[in-house]
């Protein structure tokens, strides 16, 4: 095979792996949108907050230490212990559940039956609040996240694919972290599917996503389902936060992965879980391939920032309901 084709293939594979992350963030959006009709603008910030919390717990940071030091004149820096990664992940999941309960108690409960735009605005407010709250709780500096996931290119894949090409081709370069992320995402999706198909709570969740009134009439508590669904979205955000944070450090820019999820949602539809996954993969692969084949050689590069949106917009024109979304039929 000509090397050029192999490099394109490598770009496509790496794109797929990046797409897994986009899919994860999009999944968080879809879960909440499906069950409560809310577009949760804060989903990206949730990923940042989850990653910050994870790092904070692992490093034994005292939460709100700057605040405490400023008020009481203390010199707190940390508890002086380090929490094992697994335990820290479990504790962070707990924090995300508490966050979900707080969101339901303090926001959702008071805004039921308000127009969608009000709820959307509320999540914008929530996003900026969470951003500041995360800084206040764990500090604003850039943090390194290392939960012990393998990093760097896989030599095994490189060695075993080198023969495909000529002298200029050294084998596919695939980051092991991306492979781990893909496996984690797959496990998460399988787990979520099993949960929604085979448990009472999952069945209730599907019911609420389908029709609120009918769900109430069979005895489902909407509040409970909201807490459940925001908790799950929080856990999905944590997984995305771990993967992204391990790669590029935990900092404000992490919350911007939400922006990558938007075109994925436009492509996959706001209510489809398979749509979020396939959409993420298409966007991830599409933007890497476009950059490799057209962007870098002809357009001066850096097309990854906007290509996803162009792709999504084009798609919107021809199929506004998204890949798997329900067909939109105007009722008259």
């Amino acid at each position, binding site marked *: 095979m000509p090397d050029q084709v192999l490099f394109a293939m490598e770009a496509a594979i790496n794109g797929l792996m990046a797409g897994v992350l986009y899919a994860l963030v999009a999944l968080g959006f879809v879960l909440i949108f499906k069950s409560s009709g809310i577009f949760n603008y804060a989903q990206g910030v949730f990923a940042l907050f989850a990653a910050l919390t994870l790092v904070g717990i692992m490093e034994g940071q005292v939460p709100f230490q700057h605040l405490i030091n400023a008020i009481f004149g203390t010199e707190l820096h940390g508890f002086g212990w380090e929490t094992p990664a697994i335990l820290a992940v479990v504790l962070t999941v707990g924090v995300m559940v508490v966050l979900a309960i707080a969101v339901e108690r303090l926001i959702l409960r008071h805004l039921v039956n308000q127009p969608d735009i009000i709820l959307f605005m509320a999540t914008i407010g929530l996003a900026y609040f969470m951003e500041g709250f995360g800084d206040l709780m764990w500090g604003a500096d850039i943090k390194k996240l290392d939960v012990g996931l393998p990093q760097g290119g896989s030599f095994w894949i490189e060695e075993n694919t080198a023969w495909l090409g000529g002298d200029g081709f050294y084998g596919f370069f695939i980051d092991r972290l991306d492979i781990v992320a893909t496996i984690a995402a797959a496990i998460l999706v399988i787990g979520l599917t099993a949960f929604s198909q*085979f448990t009472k709570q999952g069945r209730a969740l599907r*019911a609420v996503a389908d029709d609120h009134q009918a*769900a109430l009439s*069979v*005895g*489902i508590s909407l509040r409970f389902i909201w807490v459940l669904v925001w908790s799950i979205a929080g856990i999905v955000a944590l997984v995305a936060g771990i993967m992204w944070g391990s790669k590029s450090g935990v900092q404000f820019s992490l919350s911007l992965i939400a922006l990558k999820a938007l075109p994925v949602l436009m492509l996959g539809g706001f209510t489809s879980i398979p749509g979020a996954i396939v959409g993420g993969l298409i966007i991830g692969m599409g933007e890497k391939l476009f950059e490799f084949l057209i962007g870098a050689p002809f357009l001066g590069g850096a097309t990854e920032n906007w290509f996803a949106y162009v792709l999504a917009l084009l798609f919107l024109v021809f199929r506004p309901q998204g890949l798997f979304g329900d067909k939109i039929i105007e009722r008259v």
Partner: protein
Amino acid sequence: MDKEEGMAVKDSAESYVTDDGRTIGGVLMDIRSITLRFGGVTAINDISFDIREGEIRAIIGPNGAGKSSMLNVISGFYVPQEGEVWFRGALRPPMKPYQVARQGIARTFQNIALFEGMSVLDNVMTGRLNHMNSSMWSQALWLGRAEAEEHENRERVERVIDFLEIQHIRKTPVGRLPYGLKKRVELARALSAEPELLLLDEPMAGMNVEEKEDMSRFILEVNDEFGTTIALIEHDMGVVMDLSDRVVVMDYGRKIGDGTPHDVRNNQEVIDAYLGVSHD
């Protein structure tokens, strides 16, 4: 032929046996002085009536009389400004619809509220959510107790499906069904909860004669075989006369009649309310 023709219903709390041999017990639900307003509109104006164990109680009245609002108050979807709801002899505190459902009160809707994206079987299964008790983990991991529970629930659901003769569409997504069948699936979902009190908002609206006959038969059989108490709203007077033990008549939010179908039909105020009012 009318049920109960000429027979007076005793006012006492004692049970009695109907002409067709069913036992009607004491008061199951007592509605006391309910008033419900929407802004300037008084949808329900100081209405009281009771529903006895084992009876089929009809609520009739012209369009906009407040019948659905009454059912919504009973099922917790609307919160009345005034009045009390007594259930099983106890004053019911303000409750959310899901809490009412968990008390053993199931309902259907005038405009059908089904889970359109799910199969008929899944829809009917949701009626059993409150009969599932094993923990999330044992369900997810399909452990012994959860498995037994699932089988038990599945069996009961299949019985309801057989009973309502919808076996042939078990796996069909509800969204694809014709109107008449949707109404039947909605009834199946309500029945699978094994309610003590079943509320039906116009279960036969928009059906053809044959479908109406089927639905009437199902309602009678549910009441007869399971002893389920039923409150239903219906416009078709023939159906009401055939099915119900007692009838409440509403007009402009007020109660203008209450008694056996025979009494109600001969009540002048009721006749006036219906004069010139078209009802399908």
